[in-house]
């Protein structure tokens, strides 16, 4: 019986590519006794304060985290031990209760071209999330993710340990944030096309990007807006690297107006207020250079670069990003690709958000025979409660090759 169980587990469980950090973290609600909407526009998408919280290493801004923490942490050494160092371990603390949360995801799928047009994929995914701080200078995030993939269970278990020297200087080890999009904690169930776009040897942003990252953020003048940067080195294709080359990336953004990137209330003040408001204009640019390997073919050297614009105005958000990829494989012609999207969100009510996204993907800009894929994704997100979400999303393709592949999906999420 035991052998049979193990055998079943062995066949059912596969090590999965990492999905990027993708959900809200209810453990923080418990720690601070606050609602999800303190940090989330609609979980997992962050609002201005949520970004500032993250930019402070999962802490409240301006050194106020200890007083904002409602859950007494457990001391791993008193403050006085700082004076004894290096004759003792530097003191720290850990969350007072287990910083574990669960996010559950179910789906009802419709696929126009599938034999089974409608299916109830409930559950689609369960994530056990853990996140918190360790004393003043370390924080962590991790997840154990179980996901259905054609009736097999895939498992992933990424984590990151982060040194938080200051808001402008963090060192992250493990799962990093090499993502080209603004608001990468997305509102939609469909991934951004540029996150899913593959190089010729199969690399893509969505997959396992683990390594080291230096990153930081700071407020702009008058405490408003500000900058973020990240520089990293990663394997590129998994926990065990598939080639001897390391991949490198960088991203920088600058936010004009709105809440400061590391928070604080200096210069703030308005006659209107809502958790989802953060009027600002943010520009970003990114670069990724890597090598992708695939069995039985030569290695691919590629460079990805691009930029994005993110504009928040009252109840509306307009954003878009463009990504260019140069791919070089010895013995084959170079390939240039272009992927972009533009999206608009509107908050009808704080619990009802409409969106529409247009996507374009030209795998080979020098080859007219390869027609670009382009699609539109209209959708509605409904927050039944702060931690219960329903998403209704349609994807309509316009290009000839995919125009019959329309999909519709309802996704339910809840977390605690």
């Amino acid at each position, binding site marked *: 019986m035991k052998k049979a169980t193990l055998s079943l587990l062995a066949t059912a469980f596969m090590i999965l590519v990492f999905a990027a950090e993708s959900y809200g973290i209810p453990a923080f609600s418990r720690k*601070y*006794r*606050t*609602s999800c*909407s*303190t940090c989330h526009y609609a979980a997992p998408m962050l609002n201005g*304060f949520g970004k500032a919280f993250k930019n402070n290493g999962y802490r*409240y*801004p*301006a050194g*106020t985290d200890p*007083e*904002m923490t*409602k859950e007494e942490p457990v001391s791993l050494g008193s403050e006085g031990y700082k004076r004894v160092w290096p004759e003792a371990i530097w003191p720290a603390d850990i969350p007072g209760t287990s910083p574990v949360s669960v996010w559950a995801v179910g789906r009802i799928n419709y696929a126009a071209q599938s034999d089974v047009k409608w299916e109830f994929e409930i559950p689609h995914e369960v994530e056990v999330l853990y996140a918190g701080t360790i004393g003043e200078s370390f924080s962590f995030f991790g997840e154990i993710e179980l996901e259905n993939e054609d009736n097999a269970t895939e498992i992933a278990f990424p984590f990151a340990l982060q040194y938080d020297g200051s808001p402008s200087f963090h060192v992250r080890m493990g799962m990093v944030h090499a993502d080209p999009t603004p608001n990468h904690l997305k509102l939609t169930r469909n991934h951004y096309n540029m996150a899913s776009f593959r190089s010729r040897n199969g690399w893509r942003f969505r997959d396992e990007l683990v390594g080291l990252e230096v990153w930081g953020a700071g407020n702009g003048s008058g405490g408003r807006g500000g900058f973020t940067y990240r520089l990293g080195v990663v394997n590129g294709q998994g926990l065990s690297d598939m080639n001897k080359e390391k991949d490198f990336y960088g991203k920088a953004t600058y936010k004009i107006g709105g*809440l400061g990137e590391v*928070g*604080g*209330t*200096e*210069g*703030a*003040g*308005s*006659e*209107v*207020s*809502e*958790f989802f408001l953060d009027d600002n204009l943010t520009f970003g640019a990114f670069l990724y250079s890597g090598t992708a390997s695939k069995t039985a073919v030569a290695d691919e050297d590629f460079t990805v670069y691009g930029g994005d614009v993110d504009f928040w105005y009252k109840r509306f958000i307009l954003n878009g990003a463009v990504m260019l990829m140069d791919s070089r494989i010895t013995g084959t012609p170079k390939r240039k690709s272009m992927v972009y999207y533009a999206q608009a969100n509107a908050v009808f009510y*704080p619990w009802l958000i409409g969106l529409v996204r247009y996507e374009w993907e030209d795998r080979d800009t020098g080859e007219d025979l390869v027609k670009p894929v382009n699609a539109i994704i209209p959708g509605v997100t409904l927050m039944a409660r*702060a931690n219960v979400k329903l998403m209704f999303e349609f994807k309509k393709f316009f290009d000839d090759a995919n125009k019959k592949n329309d999909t519709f999906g309802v996704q339910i999420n809840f977390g605690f």
Partner: protein
Amino acid sequence: MTTRVVLSLFVFLASSVAIAGDIRGKVKAKGWKHSGDAVVHIDKTPGITFAVPEKHAAMDQKNLVFIPHILPVLAGTTVDYQNSDDVLHNVFSPDQCAEKFNLGTWPKGQTRSYSFKEAGCFPVMLCNVHPEMEAYVVVLENPYYAVSAKDGSYEIKNVPAGKYTLKIWHEKLKGQSVEIEVPEKGELVVDFEIRR
């Protein structure tokens, strides 16, 4: 106007100094986590009016909590809302009797204010940035009120002798009222047991 205020003050002072008693007692809140935060108050004081206090009342927003949670005030009182957190806060009320006011948002250390005009109004205070935050302002037409402590005890001092209706208000439990007669000296003990 000035004459009226002076006369009112005279009546108030005369009654409170010369012929006034105290009301005290215990509140037992059944089915609630504690017996505090109930407002015990004299409903009406016929023939006595009270000037609008010049001194503002205060409600703080600190560590994502309204402090105090229950704030009884005399009608006409202006309440100053301070943001003591380094995060943006808001104060609004969906209640018509408080004109559905919304004060927007303001930085740490600053205040915005609202004057509560209508007695008998118990508007809820909310923050649209932090939906878990909640408080109440209890607007009354006289200053004879007390907020019960967590153990349920309360005391209203210097109530002019006479017959009144004593009321109790609670944010979640049903209110009650009792007819009382405050003695010219000494104290009157009135206990309440309130429930849903």
